[in-house]
């Protein structure tokens, strides 16, 4: 059993309770996708690519009144310690659904009836908090593809470790900690679009945990904005 926090409140990877892991994001990394982003969030390494709006196959899935959003979250076989079977697991299918429902509040698909926007996410290396990191990249890939959006979606987990509410749970804290609460948030609209919880929290801890997560999302948002600007400034400079 790892000691998850020392007497000075420093976590097993050296962070303070309210500190994010290192995050670096690059927008527009793929040639074929209409929009894309690559994120390194701690040791997570995740690619997101977006195609669309484009025709829906099979056709009966199309909606006459609006575009639809589809999402596939997938892990490469080498992304985790034990080799993962390449076929999608039940966990991956559920995460695909909650990610889709976390992005839906942000995208505006009314003007693209009978089309689909496909969001494909590939986890190349996983390290705790993949769904949040995946969402951060997917949100930017949608923006990069030019899909109209009400807001970016920023995501970050909070949790409970060594009886403390902490920001951005890493892999060890997820395995051996007391609670993990992934949150996705639209910072300008003030809306939580993904929220899950595994673990036990008192009502007071619950409130603090949500608030901590939202604060983390706001920090992530600034990094996302910068990544987006980096791409478009660079383009304009050319």
């Amino acid at each position, binding site marked *: 059993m790892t000691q998850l926090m020392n007497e000075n409140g420093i976590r097993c990877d050296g962070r303070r309770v309210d500190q994010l892991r290192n995050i670096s994001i690059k927008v527009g990394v793929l040639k074929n996708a209409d929009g894309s982003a690559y994120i390194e969030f701690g040791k997570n390494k995740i690619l997101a690519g977006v195609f669309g709006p484009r025709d829906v196959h099979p056709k009966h899935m199309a909606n*006459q*009144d609006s575009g639809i959003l589809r999402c596939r979250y997938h892990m490469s076989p080498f992304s985790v310690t*034990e080799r993962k079977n390449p076929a999608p697991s*039940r*966990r991956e*299918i*559920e995460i*695909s*659904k*909650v990610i889709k*429902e*976390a992005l*839906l*509040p942000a995208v505006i698909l009314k003007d693209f009836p009978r089309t689909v926007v496909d969001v494909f996410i590939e986890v190349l290396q996983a390290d705790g908090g993949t769904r949040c990191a995946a969402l951060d990249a997917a949100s930017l890939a949608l923006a990069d593809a030019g899909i109209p959006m009400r807001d970016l979606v920023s995501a970050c987990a909070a949790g409970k470790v060594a009886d403390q509410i902490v920001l951005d749970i890493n892999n060890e804290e997820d395995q051996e900690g007391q609670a993990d*609460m992934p949150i996705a948030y*639209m910072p300008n*609209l*003030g*809306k*939580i*679009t*993904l*929220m*899950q*919880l*595994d*673990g*036990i*929290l*008192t*009502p007071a801890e*619950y*409130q603090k945990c*949500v*608030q901590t997560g*939202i604060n983390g999302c706001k920090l992530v948002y600034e990094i996302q904005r910068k990544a987006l600007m980096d791409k478009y400034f660079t383009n304009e400079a050319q």
Partner: protein
Amino acid sequence: MANSVILAQLKREQILELLKEGKRLDGRGFEDQRPLSIDVGVIPKANGSARVRLGDTEIVTGVKIQPDKPFPDLGDKGILICTAEILPLADPNTEPGPPSEEVIELARVVDRGIRETEMLDLHQLVLIENKSVIGIFIDSSITDANGNLFDACSYASVAALLSCTVPKYEIKDEAPVLVEGVTSKPPVKTIPVSITMARIGDHIIVDPSSYEEACMDARLTITTNTEGNICALQKGGIDGFTFEQVVRCSEIALSVGTKIRKQLEKLM
């Protein structure tokens, strides 16, 4: 298709209009659940079972308990697996086939509600560490799908577990052998209660019916334990919640859950 979209739009306007007056389509208050009936022991061939009716939603859940191999790296724990199937007779829109993403989410949320509250002491289900453990399979057959499958399926699963009898296995020649006629109660530590809420406009309502689900903005399922803690969450739907709303939802989940927990405790 176009027609049903227009109908759904009209229905949403009607429901919203009523909610502004503090009313719901079926006359319930915002924090009222539909009538809940729980019958246990309905499948005598299973080790535990329950039929739950929550309004017009109906579910039969059976628990099977049998020796199994532990998961790798979890050799000190028994196995717990929840599955669900929306039977095609339960819903005109469900086709036979592999589970949809909706059903996979449903089964995983029910599973986490039981697992994360630590309802069962899985360490008590080990026969030989790393080699042989007791497996508990909780399978739910949804026979009438009329809204809020999350809570109905959770109540049926918890009720089937609470009422089950655990057969005894002994190890002979390194293999588990059933000891006839000896059973015990399951190692229950707490009772999880799932409360699902829908947001429609600015209104939070408990236990949405299928009409309400069809036009809701967002959904939040919160599972609490006997000690008054919050143990599992799942947000769904096409829109989000404010911070204030998710705090309010947690308060509702705790208060409404207390009543349900009393109904479940009687089954122990």
